[in-house]
């Protein structure tokens, strides 16, 4: 064996290395799809009577919708190598805001669709604020979003005074109950968000700039790309998604409360990473995220149908994320690992 290796020319060695890299990349690219297929197969066999039913398919669609919207917003943030920790807070705040602005049990407001738009704008405004502080004051996205997330939670609780508003607007409450072609309307909404994100990512210069910033920020900067503006826009996009997720979360629950956002950061970012988007930025995309969201949702749903305890489910999610990070991280780009 050693003799054969020694006999390989430099060109052959290089070619073999390239082939190994290509095989690894291919495996990484397809691993999430294989995992999803395996999960569906396993649960279908083990829980055929309850997992593989039309009702449960609808349940999975319902449960994935809000996570998908948040995760699509998060994907762009991760693609530039940043993080948005305002997820739980802003989703909760948007949920409280919409519930208090449309017809509800706590006050006399009845702004209807304008209430919805204001709540989404709150998410957008938080995204803008995050991006602005991040680029203007050169503070890491981790710290900025950590602080603003706490501000958002506080605002949500302050607005509601601890008495979560029960939503009474029948026309808006009909949205989470409605379906089109057998698929819940909120899932269609999440698909539309996904579609828009895909177009931005694949068909616009903005999408290319985003990937370039994630790969190496200095290169697009010297070529004249307004890196700071792109970053601000990305946080605004994330905020917009969080606002929309908060609104749909409130409508699904028929009440606005801060808990609508609780735990969403972990689930959404788990989905992004499990889908194959690299935490260090520059690699992945929203289609990967769709697969990641499906994996997380199917895993939760299937394990619950098998009566697996919630803490074991969380633990399994954590393990899957760890494996996904280990697979997707490009160690060659790391000067040091700490």
């Amino acid at each position, binding site marked *: 064996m050693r003799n054969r290796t020694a006999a390989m020319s430099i060109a052959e060695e290089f070619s073999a290395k390239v082939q190994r890299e290509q095989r690894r990349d291919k495996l990484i690219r397809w691993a999430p799809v294989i995992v999803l297929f395996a999960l569906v197969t396993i649960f279908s066999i083990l829980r055929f009577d309850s997992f593989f039913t039309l009702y449960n398919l609808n349940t999975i669609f319902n449960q994935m919708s809000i996570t998908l919207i948040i995760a699509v917003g998060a994907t762009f943030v991760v693609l530039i190598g940043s993080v948005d920790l305002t997820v739980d807070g802003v989703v909760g705040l948007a949920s409280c805001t919409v519930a208090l602005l449309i017809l509800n*049990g706590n006050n006399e407001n009845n*702004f209807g669709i304008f209430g919805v738009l204001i709540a989404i704008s709150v998410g957008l405004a938080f995204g803008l*604020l995050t991006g602005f502080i991040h680029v203007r004051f050169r503070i890491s996205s981790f710290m900025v979003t950590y602080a603003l997330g706490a501000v958002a939670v506080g605002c949500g*609780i302050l607005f*509601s005074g*601890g008495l979560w508003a029960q939503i009474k607007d029948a026309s808006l409450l009909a949205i989470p109950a409605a379906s089109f072609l057998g698929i819940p309307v909120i899932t269609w909404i999440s698909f539309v968000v996904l579609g828009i994100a895909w177009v931005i990512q694949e068909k616009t210069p903005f999408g290319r700039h985003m990937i370039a910033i994630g790969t190496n920020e200095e290169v697009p900067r010297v070529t004249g790309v307004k890196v700071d503006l792109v970053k601000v826009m990305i946080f605004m996009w994330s905020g917009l998604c969080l606002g929309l997720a908060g609104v749909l979360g409130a409508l699904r*629950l028929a009440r606005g409360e801060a808990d609508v956002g609780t735990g969403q950061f972990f689930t959404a970012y788990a989905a992004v990473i499990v889908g194959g988007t690299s935490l260090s930025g520059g690699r992945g995309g929203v289609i990967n995220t769709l697969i990641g969201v499906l994996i997380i949702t199917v895993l939760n749903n299937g394990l619950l149908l098998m009566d697996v305890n919630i803490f074991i489910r969380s633990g399994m999610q954590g393990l899957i994320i760890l494996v996904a990070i280990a697979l997707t991280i490009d160690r060659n780009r790391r000067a040091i690992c700490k």
Partner: protein
Amino acid sequence: MKKLVSTLLCVLLVAGLLTGCTGAPAAADVKTEAADSSASAGSAENSTENAVEPAAPDDAAMQEKLNTTLYIGCSFETFDNPYLVTFDKGCQLFCKYLDSIGQKYEYTCMLNEGNSEKQINDINALLAKSGGNAIFFIDPNEAAIVSVLAEAVNDAGAFMCTTWTKPEDLDVWDYDGWVAHHSPDDVTMGYKSAIQMFESLPTPGQGKIVALQGNLGHTTANNRYLGLEKALKEYPGIELVAVESAKWMAPEALSIMETWLAKYDDIDGVWCANDNMAMGAIQALQAKGLAGKVKVCGINAIPTAIDYIEDGTMAATVDCNGWGQGGYSLAMCYLAWTGQTDVPSLPHDQRLFATESIFVNSSNVAEYKATYVDNEPTLDFEHPYEAFVYGPYVS
């Protein structure tokens, strides 16, 4: 760019104003009409036989106390829970009583958002400001900090009452400034709410149920679930088909219930360790057209749960009497501060006791709503021991 920033900041501001200004009724907005005293928290018939009768204060000494500024602290975790909000409301009700007797005071509600260090610091800051003229109602974040709080309050010459959390090996009577510790009986709450739900099933005492627990490892969650288990032993016709922790949260409960409905199509009832989770379960049932058919019970008596009991969607809930926990605790501390009770000489069962919970179902929901939801309850602050001490403490 600057225009965009300012425009969106304006949106935030407007949304804040719209929601904040027209949101939940502020304490000052709550109606103050007198309610039917027969339904007030902790009726006299429930009090223990050796209830403390406050000594008549000396006029001059009392006048001096009335003219001294009393610093009042109400310390608990968060407003992120309708039940905890009633702590503050009960304390504010006590402040109204102080207004009526001419007592000078400053009231502070101290939220710590789960940060124990902040809870200790807030209380120490108020103690430093008060010069010992302070009384506290405290819901400690964790058992480990209770001794720290007791020592701080005791050393300052102030008084405190605590609720829910206390280390097993720490005795209230070791501190003269720790007037009392009390807690509702979680086991009984879980037990009675379960029984009321069992009895409301289409065939009373027969059927399949699922249970949504709070955080596993949490004493309250464990005790409430013990109550359910006790009820299940007494009702062999009830089958518990699934149990899961929804971590006290409605969205989690919604998701779990949706998935259960894919697996079980013959559930008759849902037992929930709190009303928040009941709200999530009901949304899942509504989506499948089962709300009202599948009976749900919870604990905390949040306003929406009361509405759901009225329309038949929920079978039962339990009010832990947060108004009384806040208000009566301060009243007991006030008696100690004014010298009307001598804390060290109080019997142990008046310093460590269980408080009454109010069970709400279709038979008493109208009376409950009139007393606690539409109006402020009437609390007897002059005789807090008689009105509030319910029975032996259950850890």
